[in-house]
């Protein structure tokens, strides 16, 4: 959960990132609360950690004006090597013939050899401008800013623009009364292109499209697929002619009042809103082949708005008696969201000139009003003796409207203690070596109610279009009145040490975090009449691990060098699963994309998540004589050999699938070094991941040789009677499920080592000297040059080894470590300027 100045942000998830509407220049600090005791006060939504964003406040004194700007360019660092025009035709027609189909005689070699990736990727600009003024007096301080951000995507047709304004105000109205606000608005415009294989992905079509076709014909018309199947379209045409815009307007604001009374009491109340208005328009011109009916344009529009309000009231009591200091807090908070969605789509044969919704054939529109709410009570007590002994206990009760009335409330306690050993007299002898040493222990529980439909625990009936012209109502989902809060119980033990007057600091942490009553989308057999139950509580999962952070001021003086190093080891294990008919294993089929299969997942007690299951690839049959007769006549030379675990001479998922990889790394970490000399500073950030596998589903599409798509250059070395020793199977058009499994079913051929080391950022900055800036009447002046993602060291053959997670599949669980036509993250070079007046 993200929380900005106390206001929880709505939305999130895949649909729209709340953080995209915040101006990073306004952010003073971001705190990530990972241990459960710290997150406990955000209990209802703190299960997956809490991100606390604090924005800049005004400070009393003379007004400070600062102007920040950067401009940069972005490039993709790598593209794929594909077949050329003749190789493409040879492959497709060979595949056709191998599957007993006639070759496509529409395919002709033109010598064009269009490099579609070059046509769709570009050097894109990124620019950010921000001006802020902060200042005030004893009673009133303010921070005002205005920012503009404009980023083009590395694919043509992608653009994001955002305008932000902010007002932060703190007003000491009376000696006992403080008031203030944190308010921001934003307006953003996104020009989108489709991703994955969905709809009209520019990137996917650039990989697939026939290289014999020119971008444009001599007469100025778009080059089109001679096969006219509609499966593949000219990617440049898609980028330029298909309209897909999202406009989002957001207001996030809260007002607080704080009252001090009876000396030790403080009452604080905040009221905040997060209002989002989002509209989306899409238009596909009439000449796109797949439009139905053909020859008509299709358009859609949707409007969504959501208003979340929150009111939080806390009463705080704090008292110091000698070296003892006590604090106690009680509070209650209310939150409510109300949203409305209206979407409509249709098609028209009238014109391609109007790209807004002007359809003549309208599909039934979708109108949905929804709401949810939370009510929470919480209390906390903390005690501190001279900074040596620290103790805190808290409890929180949360109710969510999303659960059935029997399970609405969850209780989430936490307890934590700290002991500063370095404050003990017996440590004083070591003080010049160890200047700080603290042991921390905490235990806390937090809850989760995200990911449940607002009325997901109810059995629902929906109104359908009609039968014979009369209205229809049917049961659209089966509820789960037993649905409970998902909760996380975390134990953390930490040791923090600082040596030699904090020249070297070490933080170590061991944690066990178990998530209980896991939310899971229960896939149902169709015999129930339903596909799934949106959410059930399935079992528990445990993460445990060690995190180590070491930071050192290695050199001080004129030339300084500071270094931060962190490494994290995490182990993941499924501890408990609900049994169904004596079976607790849950097979998680890969997310479905037509004719592209990803790895199967498996939830099994004692195993980690992120496992890939599939066939073990052993090679390709070289010649007919090699194939044992038991395989029958359907297995041909050039077909793959998988391990036939049960020697049944047929491949089946249940008997022959085995563990072929795991998406979770053994360790991840980062290494940051900063050097400074006089006005110059150099900052280098690296991060890595080690020991994780990636299922390269891009290769499944691009090496499957089963459709009229262009393929990777590797397929030029495919099996053929002339190349019988190849390890790449033969081309086969359509489905080739001979002997129970096809050449491209989930198998170890597509599993690759996903370890990488990346130089994430290098920044070289220069702060102009005091003399110069004073002459210019400035308070500071800094120029910097920075490069992001300049180098990546990896054996992974895809475009990017990082962040390869596919959307949710069955069970609502994302397929970890699956690379599927993901647009690579770009290299970014920026030149920036900070000026303070």
């Amino acid at each position, binding site marked *: 959960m993200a929380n900005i100045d106390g206001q929880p942000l709505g939305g999130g998830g895949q649909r729209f990132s709340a953080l995209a509407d915040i101006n990073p220049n306004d952010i003073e600090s971001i705190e990530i609360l990972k241990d459960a005791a710290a997150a406990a006060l955000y209990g209802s939504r703190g299960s997956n950690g809490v991100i606390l964003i604090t924005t800049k406040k005004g400070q009393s004194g003379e007004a400070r004006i600062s102007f920040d700007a950067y401009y940069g360019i972005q490039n993709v660092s790598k593209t794929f090597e594909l077949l050329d025009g003749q190789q493409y035709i040879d492959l497709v027609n060979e595949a056709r013939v191998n599957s007993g189909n006639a070759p496509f005689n529409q395919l002709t070699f033109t010598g064009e050899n269009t490099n579609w990736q070059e046509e769709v990727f570009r050097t894109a600009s990124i620019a950010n401008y921000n001006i802020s003024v902060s200042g005030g007096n004893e009673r009133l301080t303010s921070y005002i800013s205005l920012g503009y951000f404009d980023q083009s995507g590395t694919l043509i047709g992608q653009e994001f623009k955002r305008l932000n304004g902010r007002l932060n105000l703190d007003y000491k109205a009376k000696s*006992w009364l403080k008031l203030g606000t944190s308010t921001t608005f934003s307006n953003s415009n996104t020009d989108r292109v489709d991703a994955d294989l969905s709809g009209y992905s520019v990137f996917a079509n650039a990989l697939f499209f026939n290289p014999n076709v020119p971008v444009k014909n001599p007469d100025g018309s778009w080059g089109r697929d001679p096969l006219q199947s509609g499966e593949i379209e000219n990617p440049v045409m898609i980028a330029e002619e298909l309209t897909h815009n999202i406009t989002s307007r957001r207001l996030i604001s809260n007002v607080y*009042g704080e*009252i001090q*009374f*009876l000396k030790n009491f403080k*009452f604080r109340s905040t009221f905040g809103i997060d209002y989002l208005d989002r509209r989306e328009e899409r238009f596909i011109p009439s000449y796109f082949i797949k439009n*139905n*009916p*053909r020859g008509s344009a299709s358009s859609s529009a949707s409007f969504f708005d959501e208003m979340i309000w929150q*009111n939080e*009231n806390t009463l705080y009591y704090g008292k110091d008696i000698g070296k003892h200091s006590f604090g106690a807090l009680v509070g209650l908070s*209310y*939150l*409510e969201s109300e949203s409305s969605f209206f979407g409509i789509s249709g098609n028209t044969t009238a014109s391609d000139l109007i790209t807004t919704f002007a359809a003549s054939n309208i*599909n*039934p529109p979708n109108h949905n*009003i*929804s709401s*949810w*709410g*939370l*009510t929470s009570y919480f209390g906390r007590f903390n005690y501190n003796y001279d900074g040596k002994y620290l103790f805190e206990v808290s409890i929180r009760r949360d*109710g*969510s*409207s999303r659960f059935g009335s029997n399970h*609405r409330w969850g209780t989430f306690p936490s307890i934590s203690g700290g002991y500063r050993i370095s404050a003990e007299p017996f440590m004083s002898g070591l003080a010049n070596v160890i200047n700080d040493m603290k042991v921390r222990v905490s235990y806390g529980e937090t809850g989760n109610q995200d990911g449940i439909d*607002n*009325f997901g625990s*109810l*059995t*629902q*009936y929906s109104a359908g*279009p*009609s*039968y*014979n*012209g009369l209205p*229809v*109502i*049917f*049961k659209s989902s*089966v*509820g*789960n*009145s*037993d649905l409970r809060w998902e909760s996380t119980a975390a134990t953390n033990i930490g040791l923090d040490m600082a040596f030699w007057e904090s020249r070297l600091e070490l933080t170590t942490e061991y944690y066990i975090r178990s998530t209980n009553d896991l939310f899971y989308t*229960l*896939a*149902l*057999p*169709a*015999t*129930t*009449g*339903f596909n799934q139950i949106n959410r059930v509580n399935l079992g528990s999962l445990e993460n445990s691990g060690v995190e180590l952070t070491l930071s050192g001021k290695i050199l001080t003086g004129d030339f300084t060098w500071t270094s931060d190093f962190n490494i994290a080891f995490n182990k993941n294990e499924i501890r408990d699963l609900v049994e*169904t*008919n004596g079976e607790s294993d849950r097979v998680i*089929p890969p997310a479905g994309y037509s004719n592209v299969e990803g790895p199967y997942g498996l939830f099994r007690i004692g195993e980690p998540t992120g496992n890939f299951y599939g066939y073990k690839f052993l090679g390709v049959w070289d010649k007919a004589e090699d194939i044992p007769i038991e395989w029958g006549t359907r297995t041909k030379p050039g077909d793959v050999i998988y391990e036939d675990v049960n020697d049944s001479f047929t491949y089946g998922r249940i008997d022959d699938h085995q563990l072929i990889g795991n998406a979770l790394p053994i360790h991840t970490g980062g290494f940051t070094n900063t050097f400074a000399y006089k006005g110059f500073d150099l900052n280098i950030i690296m991060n890595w991941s080690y020991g994780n596998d990636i299922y390269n589903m891009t290769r499944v599409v691009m090496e499957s040789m089963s459709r009229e798509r262009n393929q990777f250059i590797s397929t030029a070395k495919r099996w053929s009677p002339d190349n019988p020793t190849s390890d790449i199977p033969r081309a086969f058009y*359509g*489905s080739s499920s001979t002997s129970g499994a096809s050449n491209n079913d989930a198998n170890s051929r597509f599993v690759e080592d996903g370890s990488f080391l990346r130089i994430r950022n290098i920044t070289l900055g220069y702060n102009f000297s005091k003399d110069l800036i004073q002459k210019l009447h400035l308070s500071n002046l800094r120029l910097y040059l920075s490069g992001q993602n300049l180098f990546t060291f990896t054996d992974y053959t895809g475009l990017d080894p990082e962040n390869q997670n596919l959307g949710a599949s069955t069970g609502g669980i994302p397929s970890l470590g699956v690379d599927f036509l993901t647009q690579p993250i770009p290299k970014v070079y920026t030149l920036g300027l900070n000026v303070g007046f």
Partner: protein
Amino acid sequence: MKSLKILIIAGVFSIAACDTLEQLPVSIISESNFYQNESDAEAAILGVYDRLQGFISNNFIIPISARADETDVIRGGNWTRDESFSTTSNDGHVRNTWDDLYAAIGRANDVLANVPGILDDNFTDEEKNKILGEAYFIRGFAHFHLVIRFGKVPYISEAFISPNQDYQPARDDIATVYANIIEDLKMAKQLMPADPSLKVRANKWAAAGMLAKVYMQRNNTGDRDLALTEINEVLNSQGYSLLPSSNYSDLFRPDRQKTVETIFELSYGPAGLDDAAFDNEFVSTQNFRLQPEMKIINAFKADSALVVESGKEEVRMAAALEFYYPIFNESGTCILACNPRNEYFIDKFTKDDWKKTSERAQLHPSVIILRLADLILLKAEILNEKDDLAGARTLLNEIRERVNLPETTATNKDEMRLAIENERYLELAFEGHRYWDLIRTNRAVEVIKNKGQFVPTQEKLLWPVPQADIDQNPNLLPQNQGY
């Protein structure tokens, strides 16, 4: 004083807050609000018919005609695999058939579980029974189409209401499934009104007719007699009659359907109000995937010659097949009916409409599930098997005369059996009967083999259970033989 002021302010803040936990759904109906009155029950039963549309549109006729000697597949992997009897358990249409039929069964069970408890004074027992009867009818009908396609299937007679329920049923024996189907259809027959004007909703005669079809397909000893009783009841009801030759094509014309000959047809109209459309893969467009086989074209042509010889008007071939006319755009590119394998395409349920639309899935006819000609020919078949050759001949000739054909030339039981089979082949062409006829008479392997293209095995006449459901329910194992 100051403290008091502060406390008042604090109090105001706390009171201002209210209960945020009671949220009322606006855009959905919750369980507790539904099944309150007659119109709820009415909307719910229409929802059951609505859920049959997907199956009837996509899989009731098409894959079955591809398997039989009715249609050739031009393109489409699923249909191609059906035609060549290499269907796999991952084929989308196999899964859709399974899913769609069980979803309709689920809705029928929901009606059966909830409608009896509705307390509404205006909701008479008669009206309630009609709705319950329709739910029994569809539950039986859907299981029938499951058992003939998949063999052993779970018979689902309980509504699914909670994840705590056992949702992984095993497959019931074929005999059990049939017994349950028959029980459901008998209940339906008993509860539904004997009102022949009900066409797009089932009535008593639809249940009787379906019972006859079920008995014939089960084909146990004595089943023919049971079927005969049901057919006679329908025939004696006087509610239905064969359309005259002049109106024969009305059966399939969206603007003239719901004829006196139809006992039950599933509605896809009116266009604009119903989101579902008949996904006609036969329509003569660039996207068409199936064409009539030469065998059926030649059979139609032979009949047609007889009609023309007698100087009458040919109506049956004209209703079933249409000459293809390639259509070219201004620049001379063929845009419709390009590259056919032969000069005909299938015109049932599309009469004239194909000329107006360039795409399939835009048509809103009714699809005939049961019509009188089917029952008359079944009766002829039964009589012939009971050695009542004269009775069989009368009925067969009734069907032939109505389409201006001369009387049958069959003179003995074997000839008559073949003549009736052939009559059904043409009269009911492309309506989803041929394949099941061949299966129940145990002639499928032989007849399909004789096409000379594909050789099915007895095992492959059934579809495999979809793998997707086995993944969610291992109790469905073992898979059908041969898969």
